[in-house]
């Protein structure tokens, strides 16, 4: 017993560092336990050490790593944000979207507001280009479509011993329109299959199948996708919808999600399905959009509200951090 109490501060600090990476022997563990009971300085050191670990892995300049392997978080200095991506709309995407919606015109209240002019203008440009032997325009002018990646950094695992993660985070993304967009779809299915952990709550309703049926039908997500109300929502390139659970058989590029004003989704690094609790991770969701409706203003804007909540702080709403991004889709 006296030998255990004889653990010095020097030894205790060494053990504090050591135990974050490898298990201590029973003797070391007991020695450290008793020492920490009686030594306030070493208790403070333990806290400081964890805080330094946290700082080290969340340095603001860090780079993204492969999803699922990253415990450091892609953007340690930032909790969430929108990464810069370029517009990836192609003529085919645009035209297919137009055609597919035309098939469902009876159900699509937006059909009347299609931008025929934009398509016609593009065709005209192609003709002119052919005649004058110029390069074919790659994009339809006047449209607003593109993609952006949303990321958020999970904080778990950063500086905390595995299995003892005190905090987790969840990020609620609420999309608020300044100007109506046609639709937005989430990460392409192909990418979701490549990165099984790359799932968001909304994606889980369509990607995880029957076991998440109740989740998909919960009122929380009903506002996000509601096939009853918007039956054109089913992806015309596939023969399934979110409730059929046949998604594995379908190779679809991108599922349309009708985004309503005020609809929201939650990305979380807590829970066994899309991220083990003991790892921090960078969740990334791509949003692709088309703004089919041409208003007076030709650009289409939406704002996204990121609302980070630590699970430990759920009761204290004052601690929530809120960031609002406004995105001009024609950028």
């Amino acid at each position, binding site marked *: 017993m006296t030998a255990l109490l004889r653990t010095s501060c020097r030894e205790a600090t060494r053990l504090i560092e050591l135990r*974050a990476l490898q298990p201590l022997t029973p003797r070391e563990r007991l020695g450290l336990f008793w020492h920490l009971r009686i030594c306030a300085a*070493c208790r403070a050191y333990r806290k400081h*050490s964890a805080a330094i670990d946290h700082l*080290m892995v969340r340095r603001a*300049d860090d780079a993204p790593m*492969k999803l699922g392997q990253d415990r450091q978080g892609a953007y340690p200095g930032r909790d969430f944000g929108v990464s810069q991506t370029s517009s990836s709309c192609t003529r085919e995407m645009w035209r297919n979207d137009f055609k597919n919606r035309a098939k469902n015109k009876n159900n699509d209240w937006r059909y009347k507001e299609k931008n025929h002019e934009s398509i016609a203008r593009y065709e005209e440009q192609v003709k002119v280009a052919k005649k004058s032997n110029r390069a074919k325009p790659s994009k339809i002018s006047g449209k607003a479509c593109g993609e952006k990646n949303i990321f958020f950094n999970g904080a778990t695992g950063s500086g905390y011993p595995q299995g003892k993660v005190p905090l987790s985070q969840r990020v609620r993304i609420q999309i608020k329109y300044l100007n109506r967009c046609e639709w937005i779809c989430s990460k392409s299915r192909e990418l979701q299959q490549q990165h099984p952990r790359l799932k968001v709550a909304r994606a889980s309703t369509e990607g995880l199948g029957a076991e998440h049926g109740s989740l998909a039908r919960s009122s929380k997500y009903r506002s996000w996708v509601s096939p009853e109300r918007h039956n054109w929502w089913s992806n015309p390139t596939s023969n399934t919808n979110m409730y059929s659970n046949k998604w594995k058989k379908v190779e679809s590029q991108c599922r349309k999600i009708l985004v309503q004003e005020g609809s929201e989704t939650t990305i979380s690094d807590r829970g066994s399905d899309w991220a083990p609790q003991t790892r921090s991770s960078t969740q990334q969701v791509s949003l692709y959009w088309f703004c089919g409706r041409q208003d007076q203003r030709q650009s289409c804007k939406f704002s996204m509200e990121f609302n980070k909540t630590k699970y430990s702080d759920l009761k204290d709403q004052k601690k929530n951090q809120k960031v609002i991004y406004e995105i001009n889709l024609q950028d």
Partner: protein
Amino acid sequence: MRQHTAELLRFARNRVKDPAVAHDLVQTALISAWESMDRFAGDSSPRTWLFAILKHKLLDHYRKAYREGSRLSGEPAEADEPEAMLFDTDGHWRSQHAPALDPALFADDDDAERRHRALLHCLEALPERWRGAIEMKYLLERDAALIQQELGLSEANYWQQVHRAKLRLRACIEERINPAMRHQKT
């Protein structure tokens, strides 16, 4: 590739003391990427791939710095070791260096930017070989066996390096964030 160069540079610059070395590392990483372009499977984004290459270059650098540091300077002088400065002969904290549980220090508040700056400053002040040991700990996701394999260190020696680096880092950050505290102690 061009669009990621600035990020790669920033990443390297915050992990290596000498800016010229950081530039060299990014340069060699880009050259390696260029040479192995055909082996890039496209499973990850090009950015992730570039950073993975850079991380390997950084590991090479730390390994080299550690070995050269050992060869040129030998073991650091006893007086230079933080243990001798921070602990007395019985291994207990010297009163002026004992950590105190100051709630303002390392608290989870909005002052993260200041702590981040302090961290970068204190990392710069670390001897290169200690920094290598501690940076590798995080770069290799704290896989102790992998780090020891990379650095060619014995287990005890590696932990000694990390322990020393951490002790000095903690004292430095405390000093920088809350200098008044140190004066109170003395």
